[in-house]
């Protein structure tokens, strides 16, 4: 187990990167705390797998350093870093039995057979494959194979970190919950540093203590699930997290008031006069449809999601989403929307502005 420090780290797949656009991973400084459970969240191609492969040593970064507990391992080979990694598609050694598959990382490190047998038993119990230990790995189902991969990742007790690269993509939904719960339990029991790459927000938010959101090769926000929900640092975070995502509405902001197409809106805190592309972001959960007050909207469609309703509406021609509880009425005369001032975030050029007089909403 180790604290992992990224120091000025950046990576480009091009041999001679010139502009920022050449970098698959833009400059990054961060400390992954020892024993933390992190999720790396972002859409496909945002650089999350690149970052993971740099940490595990499968990829050499173009610049910067990686330190494990303060020791520079930037140029150390994978084996020396003592890392476990589980890949998106199950990797099993086809010709070996399940038992030999699980034992492989230990045997390669020359552990004695008694210890190996003990560990394999423990891990097999954890992944629920005790009765399959003597089967050949080939011919097992995809999720059984992925469980073996997970097991192989966890079989070594002394790993510095456990890395997961979208490990549950090929797993059936009901198994996903089970495995994710087991991973959490494992983290709780053994306190490994875990980094979990995913593009599934539910997976990220339920697994991790801290979620690292990446967008276009850049880490845009690192925070608890609550931070990401309440105070998205970047419009991408707002849009990517939540279902549906945050409403981002272009506005002109003066002090504590936003002007949207001539209508004034109280922001609950002062923001000065930001320049650039100014937008306000508010989550659908904090909008309410009303009959008399607020900004004029046209309701287009109401979707019943069971516990709540999603109202698809247009505000000055722009699509917005409103979430109402299942008991809230939606009537024909409700053609206005009200905002919860404490829940409005202000963005300039996609980045969140901290309120000048930090009253409501709190400073990030």
């Amino acid at each position: 187990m180790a604290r992992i420090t990224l120091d000025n780290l950046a990576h480009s797949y091009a041999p001679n990167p010139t502009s920022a656009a050449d970098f698959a991973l833009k400059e990054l400084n961060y400390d992954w705390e020892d024993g933390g459970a992190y999720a790396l969240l972002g859409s496909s191609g945002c650089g999350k797998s690149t970052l993971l492969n740099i940490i595990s040593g499968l990829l050499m970064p173009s610049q910067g350093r990686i330190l494990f507990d303060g020791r520079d391992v930037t140029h150390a080979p994978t084996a020396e870093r003592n890392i476990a990694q589980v890949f998106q598609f199950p990797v099993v050694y086809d010709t070996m039995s399940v038992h030999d598959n699980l034992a492989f990382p230990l045997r390669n490190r020359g552990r004695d057979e008694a210890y190996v047998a003990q560990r394999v038993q423990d891990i097999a119990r954890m992944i629920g494959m005790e009765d399959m230990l003597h089967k050949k790995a080939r011919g097992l189902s995809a999720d059984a194979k992925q469980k073996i991969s997970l097991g192989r990742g966890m079989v070594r007790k002394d790993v510095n970190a456990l890395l997961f690269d979208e490990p549950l993509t090929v797993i059936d939904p009901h198994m996903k919950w089970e495995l994710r719960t087991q991973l959490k339990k494992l983290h709780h029991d053994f306190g490994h540093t875990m980094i979990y790459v995913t593009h599934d927000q539910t997976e990220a938010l339920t697994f991790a203590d801290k979620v690292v959101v990446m967008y276009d090769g850049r880490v845009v926000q690192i925070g608890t699930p609550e931070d990401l929900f309440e105070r998205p640092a970047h419009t991408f975070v707002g849009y990517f997290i939540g279902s549906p995502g945050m409403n981002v509405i272009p506005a002109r902001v003066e002090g504590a008031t936003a002007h949207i197409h001539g209508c004034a809106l109280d922001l609950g805190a002062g923001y000065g006069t930001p320049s650039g592309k100014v937008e306000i972001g508010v989550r659908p959960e904090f909008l309410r449809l009303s009959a008399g007050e607020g900004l004029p909207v046209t309701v287009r469609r109401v979707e019943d999601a069971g516990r709540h309703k999603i109202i698809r509406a247009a505000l000055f021609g722009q699509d917005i989403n409103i979430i109402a509880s299942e008991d809230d009425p939606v009537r024909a005369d409700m053609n206005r929307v009200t905002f919860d001032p404490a829940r409005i975030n202000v963005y300039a050029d996609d980045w969140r502005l901290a309120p000048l007089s930090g009253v409501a909403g709190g400073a990030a």
Partner: protein
Amino acid sequence: MQQKTTNQKAWFLVLPVLILVAFSAVIPLMTVVNYSVQDTFGNNQFFWAGLEWFEDMLGDERMWNALQRQLLFSGIILAIEVPLGIFVALNMPKSGVWSSFCLVVMSLPLLIPWNVVGTIWQIFGRVDIGLLGATLAALGIDYNYTQDTVSAWVTIIVMDVWHWTSLVALLAFAGLKSIPDAYYQAARIDQANRWAVFRYIELPKMAGVLMIAILLRFMDSFMIYTEPFVVTGGGPGNATTLLSIDLVKMALGQFDLGPAAAFSLMYFLVILLISWVFYTVMVNLDKKGL
């Protein structure tokens, strides 16, 4: 249940295939069978001979010697070409211009007609004007494929290796290319050494194509005729007279149609039998996971 319609006219649809197979395989084979059970003294007169030719051939040391040479030849070239092909495939660049370049260079020998391959090596190995032969002679090595048995064998084996190792290498390369990167990455994480990577990742993934490669090379080498015939003509003496060379000598040189027909039928059955045994064993091994 829906009643199936019966239409006997449908049999006519298989007629073209029947005719094609009849003329391309069944009738020629049956002609051979026909010769093998008869004797002729020319003038197109045939007499029933029963299994006499088969008994003759089975008792004939000449055929057994040719079979031994043949098995030795196939055994040696398989033992060289398969490991060498795998070795070449493992060391070929996996992508980029050099990979394409290697593929083209590797396939060149495969595109050369058998006869030409034979001629190339026949000249290449000549002691007076051949690059290889003259060089060896200049180095003081006693090499002469027309007079020395070992030289003749070395020449036809090296020629076959030169001609066909590419096939094994290309097939093995195709097998290697189909292995996803994640396997190699996982092996690095698991701290597997080079041998373990080969044994547990590369070899199992190549097993299917290697089986095809071995089967193809076995059958081809067991039936080989043109190349050694052009180089050595089966000599010196009968030292490189492989089965098919012997067969042609018997059928066309001596015009012993009956014995030659019996010989070729047994030859055919031997190839069929060995290929079948080989295939069955390999498939069973494959099921058990090597």
